[in-house]
């Protein structure tokens, strides 16, 4: 629990932070530090420099931007969970944030930090995918937008370049509901997800017009399972329709066994939680 030696810098602007990253191959961004510091203490990761973005103004806001809401890079999990804006327009994300870590972690760690860390058993990853969010990356060349569904590349690997910072995540308004549910490693919803699923649905005149389901904890990365949404669109969203759609919950997922579940069990849970998230998203 004693990290190797590292340099530390706390720039005041995003531009300075990006410059610090760009000039140092061994640099890593730190927001709340809840994922980075344990890895450093275990010496599993030894960055040459920590670029602490915690003193940059303006990143700690959740904003209403008309057709979407934006969650800044320094918004803590607890703030995401408690936000009226998030609860109104992205209940799946509010719920996932409320189930992230423990109280101390939620008060210190950030939503964007958890997303950038890309842990395969994190909660908010699935939520932003299902919500169709856009990730905004800022690098030396300015900002670029990455669809949440394309953001998570592999275990602990995101689409961010080493000199990019996830400065905000934008969640489009709209749809008739969203939800997130999971089974935690300590049973119930406690601890990392053994399996979790987030769902977003749009229902018009009794018919599902659009739906997205993302799963986490069960495979090599959190991911959008398009087959579930596709199977649900055009149905009435009845329990039977949900159950049938949820059967597709592992399509395209590379399942990964761990101490908490075999591949068979994880596949089963993906279906159970896809159905539960859809049911809740539809107000069931």
């Amino acid at each position, binding site marked *: 629990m*004693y990290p190797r030696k590292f340099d530390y810098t706390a720039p005041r602007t995003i531009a300075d932070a990006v410059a610090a990253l760009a000039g140092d191959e061994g640099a890593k961004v730190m927001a709340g530090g809840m994922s980075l510091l344990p890895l450093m203490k275990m*010496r599993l990761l030894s960055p040459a420099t920590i670029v602490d973005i915690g003193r940059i103004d303006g990143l700690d806001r959740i904003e209403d931007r008309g057709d979407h809401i934006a969650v800044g890079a320094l918004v803590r999990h607890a703030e995401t969970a408690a936000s009226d804006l998030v609860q109104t327009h992205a209940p799946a994300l509010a719920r996932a944030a409320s189930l992230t870590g423990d109280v101390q972690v939620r008060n210190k760690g950030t939503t964007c930090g958890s997303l950038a860390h890309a842990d395969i058993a994190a909660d908010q990853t699935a939520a932003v995918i299902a919500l169709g969010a856009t990730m905004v990356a800022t690098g030396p060349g300015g900002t670029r937008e990455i669809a949440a569904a394309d953001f998570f590349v592999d275990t602990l690997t995101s689409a961010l370049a080493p000199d990019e910072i996830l400065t905000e995540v934008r969640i489009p308004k709209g749809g008739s509901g969203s939800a997130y549910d999971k089974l935690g490693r*300590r*049973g119930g919803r406690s601890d*990392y997800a053994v399996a979790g699923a987030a769902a977003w649905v749009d229902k018009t005149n009794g018919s599902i017009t659009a739906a997205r389901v993302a799963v986490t904890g069960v495979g090599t990365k959190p991911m959008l399972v398009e087959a579930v949404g596709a199977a649900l669109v055009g149905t009435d969203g009845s329990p039977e329709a949900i159950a049938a759609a949820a059967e597709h919950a592992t399509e395209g997922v590379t399942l990964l066994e761990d101490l908490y579940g075999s591949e068979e*069990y994880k596949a089963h849970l993906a279906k*159970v939680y896809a159905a539960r998230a859809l049911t809740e998203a539809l107000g069931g």
Partner: protein
Amino acid sequence: MSTTSVLGGVVRRKEDPALIRGEGLYVDDIKLPGELAAAFVRSPFAHARISSIDVSAAIAMDGVHAVYTADDVRHLGPVLAQVAVGTLRPPLADGAVHHIGEAVAMVVADDRYIAQDAVDAIFVDYDPLPAVVDLKAAAADEIQAHEGVSNVLLAWSGQDWWPGVTDELPDAKPAIEEAKARDDTVTVSLEMVNQRLIPTAIEPRAVLANWHAGYGSFELWSSTQIPHALAGAIAKIFGLPSNKVRVVAPEVGGGFGLKLNIYPDEILCCFASKELGRPVRWTETRREAPASSIQGRGWVGTATIVGTRDGRILGYELDAICDMGAYSQNFTVAIPLLGLFVAPGQYDIPTAYTLTCVVTNTPTTDAYRGAGRPEAAYYLERIIDRYAREIGMDPAEVRKKNFWQPDQFPATTAVGLTMDSGNYAANLDALLEKVDYEGLKARRDAARAEGRLVGIGLSSYVEVCGFGPSALAGLGFSWSEYGQPAAFNGSGVVRVNPDGSCTVIIGTGPSGQGHETTWAQIVSDQLGIELDQIEVLHGDTAESPFGVGTFGSRSLAVDGTATYEASARVKDKAAAIAAHLLEAAPEDIRFADGGAHVAGSPDKTVSWPEIATSAYQPHTLPDGMEGGLESTAVFSPGNATWPFGSHLALVEVDPDTGNVEILEYWAMDDCGNVVNPMIVDGQIHGGIAQGIGQAMFEAAIYDDDGNLLSSSLMDYPIPTAADLPSFRLDRTTTPTDVNPLGVKGIGEAGTIGSAQTIVNAVVDALAPLGVEHVDMPLRPRNVWQAINGARG
């Protein structure tokens, strides 16, 4: 006890304000000028020969003062065990490593960061050997954990473990076999795993050693449960009289048995301090703790009951293989023996047992909260449930039918030990009434009718604790090899100071239990000195009477009694002084409200400061009376104490995920008389939490090569308050006559009673599907597999 007694009263813990504010002093809070930091190179293999160790790069680093390997420290000898069966642990691995995380080299540097960097720069060349982890494979001796040495250390069976203490008992086996052969009996068996656990104290172990060359003495701060034994060990190893070693255990942030050991790092920090002439500190990291301290449990075994169809148990058999890990440390092989002491539980039943202790390439196992007794209670109470289900009888009825009856106490059990007191049926009845057992069963059955998986689990238990009788020393239960022969005596000093305040110094010490409050209550009750005028000191071998330490739920029953007796002697002397000052007869003196008065004359009073002042001015005392006002008492009980109780849980299983939710948890414990109900409840709360931790969450998981897969808290989930229901506690009171306080002990009871309560409840919930058993931990995956298996 007087009606104004503070005994039995809820008194807020004196120690809590400092602990809660972070103002308590733990080892890591104590800083010495010039101190150096140690770190260890630890083995990445479970079993390997060490071909070479290259320390040259490390020793060349700036800030590194020394690197030690086996060659430097072999002369210190292995760490001695109380029960010296099996291979003892060398201070640093000597030629071979035998478990993951075994210390291979020690670095001492200016600070811990440099020390860790130096650890990374040490290159050890290992020649890996096959490792043995599986207990059945270990017992078969196909792969040997130590080359050329049998894995099987011994098998506890019969009464050979208690020579000269118990009477020769007849072998129960023939009668049990005869019962099995009868047409009118039922025999049920279950093979069950009682998995390995990692104790996980919130404060990891910590050591700070300081050699005083000028005085030829050591000072050693350690987060330990046994400061006196540690002082004896250090003295013996370094060739000093024990009064040249001062060990201080300041605040200790959780013990649970893992700090009831003498560890090589304690010895090595002393060695390095003496070599380098500087204080040397080592604080265990959370990362290394699973393998640098002991682990607990680790049994696989079969429990069998033969009984009649109307619920009379005719025989109980327990045949288990018990995992000792790679080295024998403190008690190690004696932990299963502690389980044997309570193998027949609350029941008057013939009992036969074989507990085979085997060595594996894993960290040592030793005492972990309950230490053998949770394992024993688990096997017995699980198979009784299985038996009750087989004969279609209510599990509470089966238990009651086989209980020892109150008029049979003191009761000598099937393992030859005598239990002090018990009223088992009344205790269980009190629990069943409290939970409205019939109503609860109706609630379960109604839920079942809706297709829900709801179950009730019950367990009774008996504990043996309050160690204990001096004769235990004959079994090797003492640190005599370290020149500390005292078995399990308790000790206490009560001193009234010249200003009338009172200092109590005890031979045991808390690791969170609240000794400072409990002991103050005992003394305040005797002397009438206000609680805030009583200071309880502990854990410093330079000032405290010789003490055995805190473990085995023994502190109150043994050391508490010593303090009680010391305060009674002080009270007698103070009464004589007060009588002299008040010109009354000593037998007429009463103590209350911060002083003494004459019975019937409440205005004839003298305060404690006045009594104390007189005591320290002998010319004011009665002729011939010695000055001073203090007493030291040593108490050696004639028997251990035998608390008991019954627990009951209501659970619901999610059939889709296997997730278990504890809907209700009740405990009806009986630990004899209670000094502080709040502290007792707190002990039960923590004990149940750890039992539920085993039942539902925790498991030390190794792969076949002996790698510990659950080596961090990410992979070793321990329960938090948020994961547990609100426990509903109550108690019956059956005092013991083993000590004058009538107290038994409560530190481990919650753990001993709870794991099988949960498993019994889950199996009851799954019974409609035909599930007979699910091994712990009842993680959702395991429960779901059982459901799936039953559904085919």
